[in-house]
Every structure is written in C-alpha cells, then in structure tokens.
C-alpha cells in the first residue's frame, strides 16, 4: 500500500512541492503521507527529561547485564522480535533435534524390547535347542530321540508339570503354597500327596532325560541345588539331578563346562560326551 511506503519514508512527497498540484499517485496517498509526516513531527517528543534518562540508566546498571544474570535469562516468545524468516530457521532446527531425540528414544525402547523378547523366548523354549542338538548327535547315540515326547506338545502340558514339580522341590514342606489350585492339580495328577515326589521325578526324568541320557553326567547330589537357579537354567538343571542319579561316572570336564548356559551346552554336550551337566555350578 502506498501508505506503507510512506511509512518507510521513501516516497514522501509534498503537495506544495508541485506548484500546480499535479502529483503522481492518487491524492489520497499524498494526503496521508503528508499527514503522517506532520503527525510524526508533532507527536514525537522533542524534549527528553535528563532525569528520566538517569533513572533508566540506573535501572540498567542494577540489572547487571553482561556476563551475569540477565544475559542468561531465557528469551520468552514475547521477547523474540527477530524477523520471521530468521525465526523460521531456528524452529526447524529445534524440530529436527526433537525428532532425532524422539527417534533415538523410541529406537532404544524398541531394541530393549527385542532383547527382552529374545530372553523370554530362550527361557520358555529351553527344550527346543536341546532337542535340536540331541537330534543331531542322535546318529551317534542312536537312542537319542526315540523315547522323547514330541517337542510340539511338550511345552504346553508337560512343561507345566515340570515347573510345578520343580517348584515343589523348592518349596518343599514349608509354606501353604501346596494348597493352591495348581498344586492340587499336581497332586491329583500324581494320585496322592505322598506320590508327588515319585511322580515328579518320573516327569522330570522323561522331560530332561534326552539331553543328558547318553552322557549320564551330573553329580547325584546336585539336583536340588540346581533348582535354585533361574528359570532358564531350571529345565536342564533338575534334569541333571534326576538323570544323573544313575550315572556314577560323572565326567569332571562336564561340570566346568558353560556354567551359565545350561540348555545350549546341554545340547552340545551330546557330542563331546559329558558336558551336558554344565549346569552344575
């Protein structure tokens, strides 16, 4: 608009600069330009009170600008009078940082979730690796997979029973846990409270016999101690304890093998002969 221009002071022209009144542009523009000029001159204060200036300077001094304090004060939105294009440059930068940070955070969560899912899988599926491993050396140890229950239906029911049995060993006589429904089921399945131990040992022998059968490793007394270890190690551990009862010639090398990773080493133990008891210590 014409008046915008005149506000910038560039095209300010005066009517009386043109004697005959012929001016370029509509008279409106000229009028308002002249009017604005006159108003500016009339309304701007031409006299400044020095005391007011001293007051302002004192306020400035007490505000302590420079390296300390106010310099570090946060710029509020109302204090940001940079040009829009200047501000727009910063905003995407801030947004970019935000997006990058958010993606990093989400990525971290995702990675963590993957890790935990993996661990959960290995925990649940302890028998699967040993099954696979036991099938491989099944050629050399011919009886490896013959009497083994099918892996597919194994985790569902038999593993429950195993878990109950292991917990039974752990809890033992103390506590009222045996009153719980799961225990009642176990007792029912065993056919009586006093038969639970026998039933359990049968179950556990059947469940974990495969990885350790050929090796016969495992010291007889270690079974209950193994039951104390975490969920991942439990299957193999108690399996060793029960299956190892019949094995007098324990392989000493097996006891040192792979203290942490019972299942896997149990599987590989088939080939080396005797490492299946890796769960012990």
């Amino acid at each position, binding site marked *: 608009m014409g008046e915008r221009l005149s506000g910038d002071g560039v095209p300010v022209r005066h009517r009386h600069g043109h004697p005959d009144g012929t001016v370029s542009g509509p008279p*409106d523009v000229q009028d308002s330009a002249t009017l604005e000029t006159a108003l500016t001159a009339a309304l701007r204060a031409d006299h400044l009170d020095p005391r007011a200036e001293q007051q302002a300077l004192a306020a*400035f001094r007490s505000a302590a600008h420079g390296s300390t304090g106010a310099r570090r004060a946060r710029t509020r939105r109302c204090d940001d009078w940079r040009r829009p294009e200047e501000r727009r440059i910063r905003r995407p930068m801030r947004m970019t940082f935000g997006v990058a940070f958010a993606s990093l955070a989400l990525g971290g969560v995702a990675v963590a979730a993957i890790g935990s899912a993996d661990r959960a899988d290995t925990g649940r599926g302890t028998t699967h690796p040993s099954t696979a491993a036991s099938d491989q050396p099944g050629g050399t140890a011919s009886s490896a997979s013959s009497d083994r229950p099918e892996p597919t239906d194994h985790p569902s029911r038999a593993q429950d029973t195993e878990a109950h049995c292991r917990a039974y060993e752990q809890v033992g006589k103390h506590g009222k846990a045996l009153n719980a429904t799961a225990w009642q089921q176990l007792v029912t399945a065993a056919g009586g409270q006093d038969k639970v131990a026998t039933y359990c040992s049968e179950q556990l022998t059947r469940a974990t016999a495969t990885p350790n059968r050929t090796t016969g490793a495992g010291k007889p007394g270690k079974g209950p101690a193994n039951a104390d270890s975490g969920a991942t190690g439990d299957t193999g551990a108690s399996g060793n304890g029960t299956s190892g009862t019949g094995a007098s010639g324990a392989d000493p090398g097996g006891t040192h093998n792979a203290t942490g990773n019972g299942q896997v080493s149990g599987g590989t133990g088939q080939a080396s002969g005797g490492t299946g008891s890796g769960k012990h210590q």
Partner: protein
Amino acid sequence: MGQARQPRRIQACDGELGAAIARAQDGDEAAFALAYRIVQPGLLGYLHGLVGNDAEDVASDAWLEIARDLGRFKGDGAGFRGWTATIARHRALDHLRRQRVRPRAGGTEQDVLHLPGPHNTYDQALESLSTERALELVRGLPRDQAEAVLLRVVMGLDGPATARVLGKRPGAVRTAAHRGLKRLARQLGVGGKADADVTDEASRTLGESK
C-alpha cells in the same frame, strides 16, 4: 524541511539502534543510553496518546522493565522498537486500569469540535500542527484507530509489528490505521473537498484497492 525527514529518521536509526542494543546486552551503559535517546521520543509520543500527562511516569516504569529484561530481548533495531512499544503499552494499560480512566481522556471536546481550523489550506494546517492539537485529534479517535496510528506514525512500526504490539490481525490493524488517518485528515480540513460525503467504508475500499 525538518518535518519531512522525521519519519525516515525513525527507521534510519535502526542500524545504529540494533548495534547499540547488542552492545547494551553485553553491559555497555553508553550504548543503552544511546538506545534510550533513539527510542524515547517515539515512546513518549505514543504514551502521550494513551495516557496523556502521565506519559512520563509510565515511560519510566516501562524503562525499568526494559532495562531489566534487556537480556531476554532478541532482534534488531526495528524489533527493539516493537518490543519497547509492547512493554510501554502494557504499563500504560496497567496505569489506566489503576486509574479507571479511559484512554481517551475528556477535556478535548471543545477543540476537537470546532474542527476545520482557521487555516485556509490543508498544508498550512499541517505545518502549524502543534503537539497539543495533534494529541487532541488523535485521542479523539476510537481507541483502536488511535493506537494503530500512533504506533505507526510515532513509533515507526510497520504493519506486522503494529499488529503484534496490539495483539490483532495485520489486516484489522491496517484498516484501523487507515480509518484513523482518514478521520484525522477530515478533521484537519483536507477531507472536506474530496471525500466529505464518502463514507468510511467507501474510502476504505478505495484505500485497499490502491
């Protein structure tokens, strides 16, 4: 003539003003004094239009806040004018709220009413326009028009900056400024011949179309 250079000088000082602000933010007191001298005339004029004779008091309040918050400010010279205008306006509105006085103070009626003055031409009227008379006229405007005119003419703000100070849309502010100037022109006698019987609406559309 001196009057013609006035509006240009407002923006012409912006480079100097911006540099002074940057130095003042680093603690340079002389630079702050320079910024004060550049900004204060317009600020006082604006406040005179808002609060009349209390402008000096309100201005010193505003400068206290400006000095305190200078470290927060970001922008150039033009931005500084807008920022200070915003602060001054808030102080002025606080002041008015305290006083329960309407911004258009009374007492100017008799002057405003016998309008087209004794001057025979518009230019003469403008050249002899006194501060008091100009203030009376501006304060006789509706509030939004008066503020839009003052911020633009006295503080030298452009449309977007004026709109930001007033918290309104740029279009509304432009319209208000235009109407206010039109009305002032009519009161000063120039409107008589051209658009005396043209309504505000009509002249506004005329203005928008150019």
